[in-house]
């Protein structure tokens, strides 16, 4: 009798444990946020912008970020015509300052530019600050899927506030909680018009860092590729870097 009971309990556990252990959309989003909330980081990367016309621009950029991408400082190292030009992006693109190496001046540019393309690339400022998932999106778990041969959670994110996108479909790595693929949709459209991909993920100081990031504009037939050349985690990054006056240094 006891054995029978134990067997019944055991089989119930076997059947229902996977369901019980499955994460909710809220939990997934929280884990994604945690994975993205790098306290401080310095990166050196190559940005290649390929346009529909066939032309391409290649830039070498040094970036410093704080609290995910809440604060960003970008400095152009190459080519010569833009070398030394730097940008400070705060509040998800709401406040941007530029330092022009040609004139040595720091100018405030673009208020509320989050929906604008960032420095000619296919990323908008909104895309670059897409780390505060819980706060900015309503998430729905669509199921599980495989992308780039990795098991993923498939989520639908609907922006809570005004955005360029009506919805996003995100495939997040089940182990690392890093978005591997994101499709962006405009209002009323069934086909995605932008696509974001990340790959070559390496865990550094327990934070997953993608060393290859691609944003494709499917309408324009253009794409921006960011290839990370160097990464350095800086947990105690100096907050004083993220002020306009620091741009001149």
């Amino acid at each position: 009798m006891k054995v029978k009971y134990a067997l019944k309990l055991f089989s119930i556990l076997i059947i229902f444990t996977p369901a019980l252990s499955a994460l909710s959309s809220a939990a997934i989003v929280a884990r994604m946020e945690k994975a993205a909330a790098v306290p401080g980081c310095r990166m050196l990367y190559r940005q290649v912008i390929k346009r529909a016309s066939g032309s391409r621009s290649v830039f070498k950029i040094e970036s410093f970020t704080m609290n995910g991408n809440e604060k960003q400082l970008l400095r152009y190292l190459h080519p010569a015509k833009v070398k030394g030009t730097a940008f400070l992006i705060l509040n998800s693109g709401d406040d941007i300052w530029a330092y022009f190496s040609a004139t040595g001046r720091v100018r405030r540019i673009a208020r509320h530019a989050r929906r604008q393309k960032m420095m000619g690339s296919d990323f908008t400022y909104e895309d670059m600050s897409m780390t505060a998932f819980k706060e900015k999106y309503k998430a729905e778990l669509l199921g599980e899927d495989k992308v780039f041969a990795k098991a993923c959670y498939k989520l639908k994110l609907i922006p809570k506030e005004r955005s360029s996108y009506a919805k996003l479909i995100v495939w997040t790595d089940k182990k690392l909680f890093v978005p591997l693929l994101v499709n962006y949709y405009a209002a009323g459209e069934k086909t995605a018009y932008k696509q974001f991909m990340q790959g070559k993920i390496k865990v550094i100081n327990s934070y997953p860092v993608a060393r290859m990031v691609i944003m494709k504009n499917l309408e324009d037939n253009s794409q921006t590729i960011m290839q990370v050349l160097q990464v350095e985690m800086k947990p105690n990054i100096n907050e004083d870097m993220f002020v306009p006056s620091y741009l001149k240094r």
Partner: protein
Amino acid sequence: MTIDNQSWRRYIFQQVARFSAENPVKILAATVIVTLLAVVIASGLKVQMTWLDMVPQDNPAVAEFERISRNFGSATDIILTIENESKSKMKKIAREVAAELRRLQSPGLAELNGKGEGYLFKDVDCRLDQDFILEHGLMLQKTADLKESKDIFRNLDLVPFMQAVNDNFEKTYIGGKREIRGNQHSVIQGINSYMDVLRELHQLTGKEAAAARGRICAGNYFDDMLYSFSIDKKMLMLMLQPACSVDDIKKIGIIVPLLRQKLQKYKKKYPDTVFRHTGFHVIMQDEMEAATQDSMVLTNIAFFIILIAFVILFRMWGSPLIAMLVLLVGIAWDMALAEIFIGRLNIMTAMTAVMLIGLGVDFFAHFLTAYNEGRDKGMISTRASVYAAGKAGEGIFTGALTTAAVMFCLMLADMKALQELGLVIGCGILTTMLASFIIMPAVLSLMQPREKYHIPVWVKFLSWLLAVVTILPLVLMLINYLNKKFFSYQTCAGQNIFRRAGSFITQKPRRVFLTGIAVIAGLSWFIQYNWFDQNIMNIEMKGLESVELQREIVRRYGLSDTPVMYATTNLEQTQKLHHRIDKHNAVGMVNSIASFIPLFAKQQKRLPYLKQIQQQVGAYTPGQEIDRRHFIREVNRFKTNLLELRQLAAISDQELVEKRLDTVLVSNKGFFTTLEQKLKQVSGSRLSAFQKAFGSTLKTVLFKMSGPQLINYADVPPALKADYVNTDQTEFLTTAFSKKDIWNAPTESRFIKFMRQTVKNVTGTPVFMVDLINIVAREGKTAMYISLLVIFLLVLLDFKQFRPALISLLPLALAMLTMFAVTGLLQYPFNVVSVMVLPLIIGIGIDDGVHILHRYRIEKKHIPTVLQTTGKALFFTSFTTMVGFGSLMFAKYQGFVGMGLVLFIGIGACFLITIIIVPALLKLLDSKKR
């Protein structure tokens, strides 16, 4: 003489050969008469290189384009560009040229029109109507631009003016209030206007001159807007509306050469100015001339190479002449048929002569090979001709028929160009075959010195008579002499190689077969690297001024050169669509009557700004003094703004702005430094004189332009209306230009997709190209399938058995694979022209398999003999065909280059597979059967 107891076909060929060989003079005389008649008929043929013919006639976009052309005159203009360092000189020349070209007439054109007038151009636009722009110019500015203008024109004294300009730059573009992205032209226009003011200041000399410069500067401030300057202000564009549509080749053949004569005169008159022209009419004329020249040059090249090959391979001095004769006759008859049935040659058929040289000489080669065999066996000429007709006749006939049948199948395609190609090449193959059968025995009979043939006296007399005007009889006599001395029916060159190859294959068929298949399978890896180039500009002629200028216009004006267009039936619809299309970020420019009559609601929005501007300038009085230091600070601030704007533009991919600023800041290095020095040195009175003249003149212009009256339809001058409204005033024409090069991947163009979604009846060459590319993909496949089916049925009918019919198709299938593999390996793109000729490979390549199989049967499966005889002939025919098509690779028209390459590889592959793999397979199957 016994007749082979075989098919009735063979009997007929032999009888024809006998008659021809026994009555050479009659045959040749009749041929000459018919051919002369054909030449006379064919002399009316014109070469018409228009893309319109490539698109099916029931295509709605084509029908709409033709309707617009009829309704509005020519729907596309000739573009004339003038380049000079001086803007004022360009404007002066443009006005002079425009006035002259408007009066230009031609009696030839008048005759074609059937009336007294023969004006070359319906209209010549060099600038917008000055009075209209002076009265309403500011109402035509965008509301956002007007807001900025209001601030800039608050005070027209130099210091506050420059200060306002700087504030505007910093707030608007550097400050990011407006993206540069959508406003590159606006930004550049602003930069140009302010730089003009600074340049005038740079040139200040005497007081009087200073005032004059101020007046000129202010006058030019808006005057430049009237003209179509390039972004760098070094090129000015005039639009010439020809008095004919783009498919009227006769009138184009008059208009374009006359225009060129005029341009030569202007070049002499103004040696420091560059005059160039382009547009579809010009490109078509250029292409016609180049294609005609290409055709002659390439035909001669192909001819020459093939004739040398004849002498080497057949060791027969007379063979080139015979081949030349047969081909010329066949081509002449074909061109006459083309004139009768079609009346012109198009993009595809322009190179017919070159292709027929390669194709038509095959028949001659097969016949001559068999003829030589007969002579080797000791037969006299007549008997040898009959023998040749018996041995090679069926193969020639089946080969010609199958090839011609495939060509005629192209007439089922939904594209006029392909239909005409099928008809012309199909007929050409049949005419050259006919010429071969009829003429060759006669000529061979005449040429043999051992024949005891009595030439009538009157023929001898005529020959000597002809010797006065032509060298042909002399050449014949020379050849006769050479034949007596050197002619030999010894085994022709190369036969031993083929015999040895045949022996090797007979001994190791499995190895040969598997190796061949393995090589093809290995090469197939490269098939994946094939790609299709949608850009039709890449198949235009390289080095043609008209084509190069088109590309340059894209670069220098920041717009695609070729618009799409549509017609609407009322003004309001025109205005609404204009406004909607203009907002889209893929659209570079929209031109319609709505450019001069903005929507009523928009005009209402702009009125308050106009009133403000008018009040401001009305109250303005030029200041006497100038704070020199302050002005210099503002000039330096302007320079700083430009430097920052340049870096922003470089980062944000605003190429046009970046390029313009490169010219201003980098090419004119030191300008601001010397300007500062001059401003420090120049006397106060001169500066004041400049300011006074500048301010007063600008005040007058602005006061007039900011008149707060709404523009309605009646206000637009008739000359301006004529560009956009038809004569009955029932339709309105709109043209829209893409921001990006429209020819780069047009099927993926957002601009075209957007225009088609927005306007159902949009048309224009870019729209045709999208349809054409889609149709080529569809019709190309259909043509291939139909060709394969027809070929298979014909071959089945010929062999009356499935197995030989299928084997004869094997070289085709493998050759296509190999061809795609090689093009993939070379990464040479397919295009609209080269894709359409793929069915030709089927029609031509089938010959090889058919000939080999026929000969295999006749020689009772003895492969060495098959290869020694037919194999050698196939080598020659394939070589000549490859030379014929391969010579297209030297054409100026890039479409022919691709065509030539594809056919060259395809035919070559067919040949190699036929003589290597097919005999091996036949041997294997035969061994298996036993």
